[in-house]
C-alpha cells in the first residue's frame, strides 16, 4: 500500500476530536475555576483591606496553592483529562505545570532534580509571558505619551 493511500485510510478510521464537547467542557470548568478565583479575590477585598488592584497577587498565590494540593493528590490530571484547556489556561494550570515537574524530579535530588526541572514545562510560559508583558507595557506607554489614554 502506498503512503498516500494509507494516510487516506488513517484519516477515515481516526475519530475526529469532539471539538464542540471539548469546548463546552473547557468553558464550564474554566469558568468555574475563574468564579472560585473571583470569590477568593472578594474574600481578600472584604476581609483583608485589599483593593481590586492589589487583591490580584494574594488571589493568584491562593489559586496556585489549590492547584498544588490537587496536583499532589493526583486529582488535577483527572480534571485536566476532562476539561482540557479549561484547567490548563487559568493560573491553576500554570501551578500544576510547576508542581507536577517538581514532584516528578524529586527522585533526582533537590538541586539537580527539583531545581533544575521545576520550570521544565512552565518555563516557556514565564519567558513568553514576560516578553509579551514588556511589549504590552511599551504600547501602553506610547499611547499614554501621545495622549490617547491615561494611566
Amino acid at each position, binding site marked *: *500500500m502506498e503512503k498516500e493511500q494509507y494516510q487516506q*485510510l*488513517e484519516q477515515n478510521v481516526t475519530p475526529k*476530536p469532539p471539538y464542540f464537547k*471539548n469546548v463546552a467542557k473547557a468553558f464550564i470548568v474554566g469558568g468555574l475555576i475563574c468564579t472560585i478565583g473571583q470569590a477568593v479575590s472578594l474574600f481578600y477585598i472584604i476581609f483583608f483591606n485589599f483593593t481590586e488592584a492589589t487583591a490580584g497577587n494574594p488571589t493568584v498565590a491562593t489559586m496556585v496553592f489549590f492547584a498544588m494540593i490537587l496536583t499532589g493528590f493526583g486529582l488535577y*490530571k483527572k480534571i485536566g483529562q476532562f476539561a*482540557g484547556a479549561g484547567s*490548563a489556561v487559568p493560573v491553576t494550570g500554570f501551578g500544576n505545570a510547576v508542581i507536577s515537574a517538581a514532584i*516528578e524530579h524529586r*527522585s533526582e535530588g533537590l538541586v539537580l532534580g527539583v531545581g533544575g526541572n521545576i520550570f521544565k514545562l512552565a518555563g516557556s510560559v514565564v519567558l513568553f509571558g514576560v516578553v509579551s508583558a514588556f511589549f504590552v507595557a511599551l504600547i501602553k506607554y506610547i499611547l499614554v505619551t501621545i495622549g490617547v489614554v491615561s494611566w
Partner: protein
Amino acid sequence: MVIVFQSKPSLIAAGVVAGPLEKRSIFSQHFDATYDDERWQMKTNEQGHRKMVEEACEFAMKKAGVKNKDIDYFMGGDLVNQMTPTNFAARDLEIPFIGLFSACATSISSVIIASLLTEVGAANFSLAGASSQHNAVERQFRYPIDYGSQKPQTAQWTVTAAGYALIGKHQEEYPSIEAATVGKSVDYGMDDPFHMGAAMAPAAFQTIQSHLEQRNQKIYHYDLILTGDLGQLGLKLLKGMFVENGIKSEELKPLRDAGAEFYGQDEAFQSGASGAGCSAAVFFSYVIQQMRAGTYKRVLLVATGALLSPLTFQQGETIPCTAHAIEITMR
C-alpha cells in the same frame, strides 16, 4: 527473509509480573503476580522497574526449576534511556547479557536472538523478554505524570509489566518456535506520538504479509495472529490494510491485538495499552497458557514498536516503526 528454525526451540517457561492498574486487565488472571506498589517498595520508579524485571525472570526460572547459573544468555530491553532498568537487572541476575532495543517490539526481537543462540547450540537456556513501567516511561516520552494535559482518543496507556520467557532446546510438551521474521523499519509519515497505533500498523502489516508469503501460508492457517500494542485504532487500520489488499474481512478473524484488549473496554485508557511490557505480558502468559491447554495450535506473535524519541518528535521528524514476528506451534 524468514528464519526457519530446524531445531524448533521451545518456550519452556515464562514469568509475567505487573503493576496495580494492570489488575484491571482482562489478562490479569494469567499473570504470575500483580503488585499494589508500582515502585515495588523501591525509592524510585526506575528501581521499581528493575525489580520488576528481576521478578519476572525469577518466576520463569522457578517454574522451570533452574537457577541463574544454568542460564546461558539473558536478552531483553525496556524503554528507559540507555535501558538502565534491564541493564541493572542483568547486574543482579549475573547472566551473560545483551541489551536489545526495538522499542515495544523487544519482546519478540529478544526471543528471535535467543532462539538463534539455541539453534546454533550456543545456549541450553536463555531468558528473553521486555518490560515497561508507566511512570518511568511517560516522564521521558511525554509529560510529568501529574501534569493535567488532555489525552486524545487515539492515545494509548503504557503498561507497567514485565514478561520474560525461558527458551530452551525442543521439547514436545512445550510450545515451539518454528519460524521468525525480522521486520524492516517502516515509516508511513505518521508524526503524532499520541497516535502510535497509526504509525505502527503499516510495520505490522508488512511483517505479517512477508511472513505469510515466504512461509506460503494464509491467515486461516493460524489460530491466532496477535499483534503487540496497536491499540483499538491501530488494529482497525491493520485490518483496513488487509481489506484494501483484497482479503475479506471475515478471513481476518484470527487477527487480534494485545494492546486493544488489555484493559477491556475501559474508556479511561483511550485506544488501549502500549509499552514493551504490554506485548511481553500477554504473549508470555495468556498465549503460552492457551497453547499448552491446546486452545491454539499455531500462533503468530507480532510485536510492534514505535522507534521515536522525544528529541526526534520535537525536531519535527516522523515516526519509524518496526514489527518482529515469531511463529509458534504446539503439537
